[in-house]
């Protein structure tokens, strides 16, 4: 390769697109590092505090697409205070100043303000794609600037964000000349939607493939929208309530039949189940179905719908489907690759209708299954052993037994053997979430067998520091480890400090680590940011005479090349 001119090498690199591979290429030699960095267009930063915008721009001046992640995963479950950090504004400011030709920005768990969105919309002439997942801090005013100023906007994809809906006219801010939309997802907006503006926008967007509506878009509007966008591939239905005898319902039925490209369906935020049959004609084409917000659809309507979906690859559903419903899925959806079963009753009413039987049925019926997230009431080791035998190809296995510390409900044993069977059989396992009664033994198995494991979530598990040590010593590819309410302490934390250089981050909350342990760690590893998140007064922690033995409530540590961050709020103490 050294005999080729740079342009040729660069051309070869164009075929290498995955971040992992590009990172590997850049390590081969100086010349490749140089060629690679000038040709890199897409950059992924898994922790926005691991580096900073200046370093990013210095290394990749030809950047076109940036993905940034902010808060740790447990922020999803209210374990991280809102003001913790993850602000995107400094990034956008730096990118704007540098005049890089940014076209795509994907953010997850970051704080985005209207000011950032406005700046974004004005600074990059070719900006095409904005994807915000689980972000917060902005309003529909920010969306209005994006709509108004981004002339070539292709994607506006808002997934599960907390957006302050000012019920403004952001949709009408798309100029009449805007005809380039491919993706428009505003399902998470709570307020009223200007239906006229929406319909006109959809009508002048011939490339629109993905449209996800919020609950303020009623069925008659849906019918009109689908009629003028028969090329739709991915549809998120808003409000789906109407009278099956009505004219708009009949129009909808007709419109749906024409949408022969439809492959993905979601939404049904408010649904009249008996109207679902309108979608039956296109179900045989569906590869993705997300009914996890459709609390009002269950029982026979759900089963009837699923029975038509023989090509389904991805299914997100509520546990109201029941074990029987999962058996139907198992016998119908032979192409299923990813399944998520969410709890319908978060108040723990004990009405959850899925148990280990549903899981076993799915594993037996769906040979291509590789990713599962399963909330259930109970589990047994025997079931997990069967699942492992049926599906040795799991990449992601996330099991959440709703009651912490719950043992095998038949034998009353811990679930160590069951999870052990999973990690032993699934040699490609990259992500694992544990639950139920678990001792140090399960971690021994994980350390021994889970060679490809990159992310592990632990809650209410283990007996001693040995548990955590098995994992840290054994899982060579570990990237993200998050632990809550488990008896792991300083010994485990400090055993191998260099391990954290190979990991993106470690989260430990309500464990046994102490302040002095964390301080020692911070001293040994200056390339780590060791954050103590304490919602009570940090000063009191310092004043206390035997502060060393003070248990730390929340610890979040991550490798970084830019040292302590400057934007931490007072309740975050960076050691």
């Amino acid at each position, binding site marked *: 390769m050294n005999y080729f001119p740079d342009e040729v090498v660069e051309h070869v690199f164009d075929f290498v697109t995955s971040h992992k591979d590009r990172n590997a290429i850049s390590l081969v030699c100086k010349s490749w590092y140089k060629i690679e960095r000038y040709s890199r267009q897409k950059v992924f930063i898994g922790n926005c505090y691991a580096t900073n915008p200046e370093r990013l721009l210095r290394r990749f001046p030809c950047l076109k697409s940036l993905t940034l992640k902010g808060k740790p995963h*447990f922020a*999803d*479950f*209210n*374990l991280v205070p809102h003001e913790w950090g993850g602000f995107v504004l400094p990034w956008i400011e730096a990118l704007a100043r540098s005049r890089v030709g940014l076209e795509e920005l994907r953010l997850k768990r970051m704080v985005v303000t209207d000011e950032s969105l406005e700046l974004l919309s004005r600074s990059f002439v070719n900006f095409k794609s904005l994807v915000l997942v*689980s972000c917060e801090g902005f309003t529909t005013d920010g969306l209005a600037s994006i709509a108004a100023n981004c002339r070539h906007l292709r994607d506006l994809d808002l997934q*599960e*964000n*907390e957006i302050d809906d000012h019920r403004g006219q952001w949709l009408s801010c798309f100029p009449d000349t805007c005809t380039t939309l491919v993706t428009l997802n505003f399902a*998470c907006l*709570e307020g009223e939607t200007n239906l006229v503006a929406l319909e006109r926008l959809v009508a002048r967007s011939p490339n629109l493939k993905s449209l996800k509506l919020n609950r303020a878009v009623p069925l008659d509007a849906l019918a009109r929208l689908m009629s003028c966008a028969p090329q739709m591939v991915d549809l998120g239905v808003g409000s789906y309530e109407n009278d099956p005898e009505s004219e708009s319902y009949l129009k909808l039925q007709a419109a749906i039949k024409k949408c022969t490209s439809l492959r993905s369906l979601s939404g049904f*935020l408010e649904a009249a189940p008996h109207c679902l049959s309108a979608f039956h004609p296109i179900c045989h084409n569906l590869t993705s179905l997300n009914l*996890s*917000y459709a*609390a*009002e659809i269950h029982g026979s309507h759900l089963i009837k719908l699923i029975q038509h979906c023989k090509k389904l690859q991805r299914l997100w559903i509520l546990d109201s489907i029941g074990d029987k419903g999962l058996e139907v899925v198992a016998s119908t959806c032979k192409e299923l690759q990813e399944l998520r079963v*969410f*709890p*319908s*009753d*978060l*108040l*723990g*009413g*004990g009405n959850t209708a899925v148990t280990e039987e549903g899981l076993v049925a799915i594993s037996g019926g769906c040979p291509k299954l590789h990713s599962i997230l399963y*909330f259930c009431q109970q589990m047994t080791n025997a079931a997990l052993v069967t699942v492992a035998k049926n599906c040795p190809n799991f990449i992601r296995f996330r099991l*959440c037994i*709703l*009651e*912490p*510390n*719950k043992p095998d409900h038949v034998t009353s044993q811990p679930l160590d053997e069951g999870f052990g069977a999973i990690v032993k059989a699934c040699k490609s396992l990259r992500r694992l*979430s544990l639950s139920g009664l678990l001792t140090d033994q399960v971690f021994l198995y994980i350390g021994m067998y889970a060679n490809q494991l990159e992310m592990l*979530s632990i*809650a*209410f598990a283990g*007996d001693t520091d040995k548990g955590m040590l098995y994992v840290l010593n054994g899982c060579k590819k570990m990237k993200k480890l998050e632990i*809550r*309410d*488990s*008896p792991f302490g300083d010994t485990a934390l400090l055993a191998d400090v260099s391990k954290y250089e190979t990991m993106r981050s470690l989260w430990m909350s*309500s464990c*046994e680590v102490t302040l002095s342990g964390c301080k020692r760690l911070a001293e040994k590893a200056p390339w780590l940011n060791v954050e103590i998140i304490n*919602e*009570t*007064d940090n000063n*009191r*922690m310092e004043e*206390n*005479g*035997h502060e060393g033995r*003070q*248990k730390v*409530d*929340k610890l979040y540590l991550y490798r970084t090349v830019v040292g302590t961050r400057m934007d931490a709020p007072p309740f975050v103490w960076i050691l």
Partner: protein
Amino acid sequence: MEKEGLGLEITELRLGLPGRDVAEKMMKKRAFTEMIMTSSGSNSDQCESGVVSSGGDVEKVNDSPAAKSQVVGWPPVCSYRRKNSCKDASTTKVGLGYVKVSMDGVPYLRKMDLGSSQGYDDLAFALDKLFGIRGIGVALKDGDNCEYVTIYEDKDGDWMLAGDVPWGMFIESCKRLRIMKRSDATGFGLQPRGVDE
């Protein structure tokens, strides 16, 4: 210099009984039931933030469903999903309290935001405006003289006469409203309010 319990332990976010020290290690593995703090808080609080209500006595759990899910951030469902699934539990967030309103004789339903009314009087006025018919609201106040009766479907699916319970309780449990003709309700012994049995 050993200081015995500066009391800072109280400031630590823990699950379990306050003041216990020795059993701390056991706490993590203690049966979940003992970690629960029963709360008299409303459902909507739990729905929105999943936060354990502090203080109060810890009781040995009954298997009460409400008690089970009061650990912070458990079950691990993201807060966006939590908020949206709570709508199913019929906890009406103020401001998002859109309920369907049907009126006998009118071929279409309406939707109105209960959260935007401050009380029964307000609701009465709003209902009048909604259907453009004066006098519906009167039903809420003075059962006797009105052509209509306002009833609502509560969380349990039962149809109740509007106006009996305090406003706060009403908007929390009201799932939909129906304005019924009084003539359809005769024979059910509807007493004007304030009349003793």
